[in-house]
């Protein structure tokens, strides 16, 4: 199990990328899996930093990665406003260019690149657990 705590600053996405790279090396993940883990966490953490907080205070975001036999468990924890990505309407990626919405791709990508997602709100914190099969 590998943990990372970062402050809600967009520059810290670099730390997330380094963290995932190290995790990938330690567990001998192939480059595609490492890329997708980085992408999933990038989307989730970018959203937390951009949307979860209404104040200008410092907040800590926690990330946990754990490899078992043939899955990777991903967890993010934040103390931002309640937000359950499972309840968010899906973006229509089949719309024609004219009708196509520019936003909404982040959560869509996270859903497509994971095999299971569960959300919990507990003691003022969002806890998101994701499973990615290998």
């Amino acid at each position, binding site marked *: 199990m590998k943990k990372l705590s970062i402050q809600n600053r967009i520059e810290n*996405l670099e730390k997330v990328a380094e963290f995932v790279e190290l995790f990938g090396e330690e567990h001998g993940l192939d480059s595609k899996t490492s*890329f997708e883990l980085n*992408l999933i966490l990038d989307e989730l953490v970018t959203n937390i930093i951009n949307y979860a907080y209404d104040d200008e205070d410092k907040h800590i975001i926690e990330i946990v990665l754990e490899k078992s036999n043939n899955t990777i468990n991903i967890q993010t924890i934040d103390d931002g406003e309640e937000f359950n990505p499972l309840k968010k309407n899906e973006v229509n990626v089949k719309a024609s260019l004219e009708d*196509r919405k*520019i936003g909404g791709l982040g959560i869509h*990508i996270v859903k497509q690149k994971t095999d299971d997602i569960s959300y919990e709100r507990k003691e003022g914190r969002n806890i998101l657990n994701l499973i990615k099969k290998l």
Partner: protein
Amino acid sequence: MEIQSGKIGDYTELKIIGRLDSNTSLELEKELTGIIEQGETNILINFEELNYISSSGLRVFLVAAKMLDKENKKLNFCCMKDFIKEVFDISGFTAIFAIYKTREEVIK
């Protein structure tokens, strides 16, 4: 990320090198929309040396595609790595953009 711009045939080519994410997408958005606003409509985005893309990067191409759509032009891509092509696929981009394997195919 770095952007190298050049010409291939009638096309303005932007080669995007490194990581295209929320820290770098504004730079590309400015450069790409700037080119389109100057009237350039034949544009090739070369992904040969692109190693990473997130939704912040993808949105730049949606913005550009909507601008080009008004001129009935598509945005062209070449030389994508497989794992990046997959992100394009799940984002529904394969239907919106013209995607080529090599630079040479584009100008044919």
